[in-house]
């Protein structure tokens, strides 16, 4: 799948793209910028991803946070980060990133701040802000070609308020606001928004999906992204043990299952061109992923909802049939 040293043409400009400098888990950066001792839940997949993201992003980074679970990582007078941090509000972290980026550029240009004092600006949001309320400010920042990173840790619901439906909630998931009852046995009947495609329609230089079970893939994507000036967007699959109804020790295994069943495609898009970075040789049935989680348990007990399970399997199969063949010529 790799395209080492490939050149990419965009608006007449040729950029030589470095690919995959990290070969194995032994090559991952040793530095830690997110330290242990946070109030995050045990087994939080988002936190595992964030640790790897910050290893690659490095110390000189300011994290601009939107209201989400991770807002409670920094509670006065403590912060688990070696980086700087600004909590904004729910809808507007990309606008906060704009203000910081612009101010750093202006102050450096006017000689009021040394070049060495520059920072990478990173937005950190949950899926509630990324898929729903913050979409306007995110679209604006992409449109303005803001030079920033954007990390959405996607636990597929409003997690910090106790797991309610969000635009990221997948079909048939039970949440606090899409409960099971006499009139509905499915959970939500709406489908997860395709945030990757929403972002891709604006052709940012780089966007990718990541997850904590593939840290080498994750780190290489950040390494690749840093070569681009402009929006660099990441959606990380984030198993949420209390919300998804699973044992905290199972988060990484579930993330692997998400890749191997094909429900969470690992991919990237450079100026809109999509490549899948990890493609399982043989896809596992989606049932193996669903049955491990309390939020989908109603699909199996008290009786098996064959039609709903099949519908989910068909969606996964359709995705790979359409996207993989369209973008890479691969055939299933």
């Amino acid at each position, binding site marked *: 799948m790799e395209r080492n040293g490939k050149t990419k043409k965009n608006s007449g400009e040729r950029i030589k793209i470095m690919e995959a400098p990290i070969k194995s888990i032994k090559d991952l950066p040793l530095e830690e910028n997110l330290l242990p001792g946070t109030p995050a839940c045990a087994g939080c997949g988002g936190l595992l991803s964030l640790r790897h993201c910050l290893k690659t992003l490095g110390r000189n980074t300011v994290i601009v946070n939107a209201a989400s679970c991770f807002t409670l990582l920094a509670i006065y007078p403590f912060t688990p980060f070696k980086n700087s941090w600004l909590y*904004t509000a729910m*809808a507007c972290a990309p*606008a906060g990133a*704009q203000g910081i980026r*612009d*101010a750093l550029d*202006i102050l450096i240009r006017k000689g*009021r701040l040394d070049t060495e004092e520059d920072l990478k600006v990173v937005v950190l949001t949950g899926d509630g802000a990324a898929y729903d309320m913050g979409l306007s400010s995110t679209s604006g920042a992409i449109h303005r070609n803001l030079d920033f990173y954007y990390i959405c840790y996607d636990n597929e619901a409003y997690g910090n308020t106790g797991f309610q439906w969000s635009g990221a909630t997948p079909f048939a998931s039970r949440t606090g606001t899409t409960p099971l009852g006499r009139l509905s046995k499915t959970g939500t009947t709406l489908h997860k928004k395709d945030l990757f495609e929403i972002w891709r329609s604006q052709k940012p230089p780089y966007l990718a999906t990541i997850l904590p079970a593939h840290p080498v893939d994750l780190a290489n994507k950040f390494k690749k992204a840093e070569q681009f000036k402009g929006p660099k967007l990441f959606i990380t699959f984030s198993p949420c043990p209390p919300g998804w109804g699973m044992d905290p020790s199972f988060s990484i295994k579930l993330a692997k299952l998400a890749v191997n069943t094909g429900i969470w495609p690992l991919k990237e898009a450079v100026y809109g061109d999509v490549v899948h970075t990890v493609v399982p040789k043989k896809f596992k049935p989606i049932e193996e992923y669903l049955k491990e989680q309390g939020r989908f348990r109603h699909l199996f007990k008290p009786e098996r909802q064959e039609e709903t399970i099949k519908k989910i399997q068909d969606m996964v199969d359709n995705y790979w049939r359409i996207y993989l063949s369209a973008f890479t010529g691969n055939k299933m």
Partner: protein
Amino acid sequence: MEKEMLTGNASAAWGVRLAEVDYVPAYPVTPQTEIIETLARWICDGLMDAKFITMDSEHSMITAAGAASATGARVFTASSSQGLLYGFEMLYTVAGWRVPLVMVNVSRGLSSPITLEPDHNDILAARDSGFLQVHCETCQEVLDSILMAYRLAEDEQVLLPVIVNLDGFYLSFTREPVEVPDLEEVRRFLPTYRPRHAFFKASQPMAQGVAVLGGLGYSYFKYQMHLACTRALEVYKDVSLEFEKTFGRKHGTYEGYMLDDAEYILVMTNSFSTLGKAAVKRARGKGVKAGLLRLRLLRPFPEMDIRNIMRGRKVVTVIDQNISIGKGGILHSEIASCLCNEEKKPLLLSFIGGLGGKNISPGEFEFMIDSMVRAVETGEVTTQKLLYTEMEWKEMERLKRIAGKG
């Protein structure tokens, strides 16, 4: 010095240009747009060394403004009415960040019904946010207040953002002679912003805007904001004095008009005060000892100044160009609260008028002044009155008939 004929909006833009701001995140909204268009043009022509950026909403605009200010840049932004309310969450947020940015609000009534002309429900909604508020009557005052606002906001005893308010249409689009100060003089009054408190840089990682839990920290930081804001009253006096020394114009926490021996006082804010002053002059012509107090600094509220002024007066009438639905005039409540413990307090009347830019006619002013005189004669204080003339009523009846509701 020569004067130029400038609109209120152009005066605001000149204040920003002379303050040599670094960054202007913007979003258009009537009647404020002329300010940001003027700044965009100057920046585009290289007449201002700043970055201008149109954001995706006022909510984003205020966020970007606050974040840039928290990074150490001098920042300006502007809004009006619906825009101010759309960004409302971030007013409280950036004030809590203790960032010294300056914002102009061009007042306009709030939907619904949607309208364009001014009243003060928009700016007064932001009353409790932690922004300081300066309310202006003239175009000159708008320019001067912006320069003073940066000095005030950036003072280390204050470190709070400031809103400078002017009325939409009546001031924003009215040309008045304005003295545009010399840039070198402005630089002496307002040097380059070099923050020492908190800002982002690589060698000094810090967490800003972090959560607090348990009430202890929350109360502490809110009290700190309140104390800094009240402290700004003292700082304001120094800033005002230095401004007067540098530029020869005095802008106090309030403005008194024919106040010295006045027995009957009208309390007003913003551009309609000009109408009030004319009414006071007419009343004086008839031998009524009237005067006008125009509030300029609304946050911090200059309570001691107001108590001192009101002492020994017969009647005070507050004309509120706003309405707190179910209570009445907002400034009436504020004035009442600073008079209630005075031993010899004046009678206090309340009128609401000028909503959505509706005129307050000479006849209505006469009625209000007569009401004050009558209150002394009879000792009876009339209940709160909503100003609406018979002619206006008839016109509204006609409009209702057209709408099929006659």
